[in-house]
């Protein structure tokens, strides 16, 4: 899964989808997850990055990441790797 190429994401966490005209805001942790996805990191690497930076259990981080990815999918911001 990767972030669609045409999605604009600013450092403030503002996300714009030029295909649908939708815009969203995410908090710094959400932005960090998006950047890691954009870098092509695997799920386990993202979980590791989150657990090493924040005081959070791996299971919690995994759950939060899964929910976040599902939200990105619902909002049409990601697509499956070809």
């Amino acid at each position: 899964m990767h972030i669609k190429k045409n999605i604009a994401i600013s450092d403030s966490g503002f996300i714009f989808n030029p295909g649908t005209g939708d815009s969203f805001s995410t908090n710094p942790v959400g932005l960090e997850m998006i950047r890691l996805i954009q870098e092509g990191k695997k799920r386990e690497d993202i979980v590791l990055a989150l657990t090493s930076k924040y005081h959070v259990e791996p299971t919690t981080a995994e759950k939060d990441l899964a929910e976040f990815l599902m939200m990105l999918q619902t909002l049409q911001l990601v697509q499956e790797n070809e």
Partner: protein
Amino acid sequence: MNKRKVTVAVSGLNNIDSPGPGIPVIRALRESARYDVRIIGLSYETLEPGLYMHDLVDKSYQIPLPSAGVDSLLERLRYIHQQEKLDVIIPNFDAELQNFIKAAARLENEFGIKTFLPTLEQFESRHKSNLFEFGQKNGVKVPYSKMIFSAAEIHQLHTEFSYPLVVKGKYYEATVANSPEQAINYFHKMNAKWGLPVIVQQFVSGNEVNVTAIGDGKGRCVGAVPMRKLYITDKGKAWAGISLEDPTLIEIAHRVIGNSSWRGGTELEFIKTNEGEYYLLEINPRFPAWVYLAAGCGQNHPEQLVALALGESVETQEKYDTGKLFVRYSYDLIVNLSEFETISTTGEL
């Protein structure tokens, strides 16, 4: 670059909550890199705000209502032309277009005034009642629709339609009916307001996306910018919108305009389904009131229309900025009574 001086008459000065396209067209022309425009406003009512926007409109004249017919219109335009030496007229109301289309040849031959309007055949072919056939002919999906002339026909619709379905007035308005009872109720309302036939249409769920575009009448779409409404008034008009990056929609717009050899400005209204399919809902035979967004995004469609009307070369514009918004606002013009008196009594301002 020396700009060519042109005098352009523009109607649709009703810059109200359900705005006409006149003022946005004028704003785009004022920003033209090609033309130094003198703008003559054409109005039907004395309280059209554009009449009093003197920084945008140089001089205004009232013209007869469309119901007065082509001859009355020509007579009035003859007088206006004597005063102003018009080069081009851009009519912006659906209801007046038929008269202007019929008058176009005489305007050019007798007065030398240019227009760039759809043909009468194109104008008729995009009517709601003909749109399904238009879609089939021009390779674009249109929700299946049918004209009905009596409420009794609604009981037979189950063989062709499932509920919900859309009940549409001949000229304006559309309502979603969830049952035959509701459909009958809406049929009577639409009939009372707009007359027969009433159109029933397959309901398509999705997001509405619109395109402002312009065709050269020879099968070339010389500009197209898609937009999604972000804020809609209770009259269903866009109060804010954003330009989209949508190559598929642009391709469809080019196809529709190319296949139909559309001549002039137009607005194409689509529904994009969740599966990514596009259904054409309506073709407006003139620029939309949000056409200034196209100029803001780098495509000046009104300028292109003037160039086409004058028989000058026009390049196809493909680039435009995505993610640009328009946000409307209301603004109180303070008008001296003498101005209102002048337009009311003399028909000029």
